[in-house]
């Protein structure tokens, strides 16, 4: 398996100081399966190909059939051991459709055939859309594989940073893919949209609605205390106040447009999760809340890893040293990085435990808490933005609830 010499050694927390036997692990319910480790796009902000971890260069470009079968057998083993009745598989890359739909369909079929009949498998391929022709979409739809698109908005200008290796825009092909998907609502999983402060939030939201996604997830650009978000200046880790909140302001603007629409035109995961948390329910997403993270990644060479976004922190951050040929997923549950994300409030920094929005924010995305050497026991680098957004949602939700009663 591909492992790296860790030019940046694993940080103190969780890797050196967390007792991973002191909690009861939550089984994995989501498996991110890499189909292809290369991408036909060269997006200027990509945390994988433009980020500090270049480990993808050493991995096979495609996942071999034998690796797919082995990963499927390990997933089935995990499903049986924990009597899971539903799992999600996410077919990812790179660009998972780079070699056509065949490998995506093969992997999904391998998992579905391996798991017990009473376990439902929701399969989704996450694509940049450039290879999603009508024929490809028909084959995915026929196999019950949903399709998620990665876009930065619903206009060409919003997607100017999404270009191929020759600098040509991905937008024309991606737009066609979105329109095709809109005609297949049963197959359309939604759109992942990374926030660009340079884009007008109302325009981004409105333009995405034109693509008729059933759901939109707005993603904060991956950043940490050593590599702060675009448009902000570096600080030492902490809960700094007062602070400018450009990302919180951007999201609050979109929230108002969504909340005041008069009808639900699309689900917006981040907003729904914050509202759920404010109403006393647990979160189903990693961006906010304290629910245990239950996702594992299988790389093209069979390595079992943590989620890709960790690669934005330092080289080797997502590695576990485990693989589907020699290790079970249960073994991965005892990895410090995995365990740390299942501890709820116990994984929060002191500032977060004392914070009045801490239980809703949950420290934000784990990836955004990183600082070199000390690790992940910090508030999010988006701490102020998250508080700004959460207080805004709380105010609007409270108003609406009291008007309803």
């Amino acid at each position: 398996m591909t492992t790296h010499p860790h030019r940046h050694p694993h940080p103190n927390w969780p890797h050196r100081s967390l007792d991973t036997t002191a909690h009861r692990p939550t089984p994995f319910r989501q498996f991110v399966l890499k189909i292809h480790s290369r991408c036909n796009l060269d997006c200027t902000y990509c945390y994988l190909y433009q980020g500090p971890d270049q480990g993808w260069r050493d991995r096979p470009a495609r996942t071999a059939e034998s690796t797919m079968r082995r990963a499927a057998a390990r997933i089935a083993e995990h499903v049986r051991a924990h009597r899971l009745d539903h799992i999600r598989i996410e077919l990812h890359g790179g660009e998972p459709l780079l070699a056509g739909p065949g490998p995506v369909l093969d992997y999904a079929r391998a998992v579905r055939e391996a798991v017990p009949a009473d376990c439902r498998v929701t399969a989704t391929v996450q694509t940049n859309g450039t290879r999603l022709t009508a024929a490809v979409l028909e084959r995915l739809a026929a196999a019950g594989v949903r399709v998620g698109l990665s876009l930065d908005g619903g206009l060409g200008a919003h997607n100017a940073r999404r270009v191929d290796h020759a600098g040509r825009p991905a937008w024309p092909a991606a737009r066609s893919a979105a329109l095709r998907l809109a005609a297949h609502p049963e197959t359309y999983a939604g759109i992942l949209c990374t926030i660009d402060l340079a884009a007008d939030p109302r325009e981004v939201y409105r333009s995405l609605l034109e693509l008729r996604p059933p759901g939109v997830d707005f993603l904060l650009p991956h950043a940490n205390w050593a590599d702060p978000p675009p448009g902000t200046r570096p600080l030492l880790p902490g809960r700094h106040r007062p602070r400018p909140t450009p990302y919180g302001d951007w999201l609050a603007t979109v929230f108002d447009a969504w909340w005041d629409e008069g009808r639900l035109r699309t689900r917006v995961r981040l907003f729904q999760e914050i509202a759920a948390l404010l109403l006393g329910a647990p979160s189903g997403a990693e961006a906010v809340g304290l629910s245990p993270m239950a996702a594992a990644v299988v790389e093209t060479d069979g390595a079992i890893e943590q989620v890709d976004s960790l690669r934005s922190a330092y080289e080797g951050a997502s590695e576990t040293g485990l693989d589907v040929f020699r290790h079970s997923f249960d073994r991965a549950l005892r990895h410090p990085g995995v365990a740390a994300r299942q501890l709820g409030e116990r994984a929060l920094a002191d500032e977060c435990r004392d914070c009045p929005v801490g239980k809703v924010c949950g420290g934000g995305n784990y990836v955004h808490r990183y600082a070199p050497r000390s690790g992940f026991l910090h508030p999010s680098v988006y701490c102020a933005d998250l508080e700004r957004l959460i207080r805004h949602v709380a105010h609007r939700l409270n108003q609406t609830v009291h008007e309803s009663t």
Partner: protein
Amino acid sequence: MTHPPEDTHTPLPEIPRPLHTDHPVLAAVLAELRVRERQSTVVAHYEDAP
């Protein structure tokens, strides 16, 4: 901008979960919560892609 430092310890409002609402977006949130309540364990999902 966040509130001034002296206001950042203000607790969040306690918001009761309404049984019914005419607000279409809140209604969708509540419908999803009813589905979530039937799950034995709610886990956080990864929603990202390079």
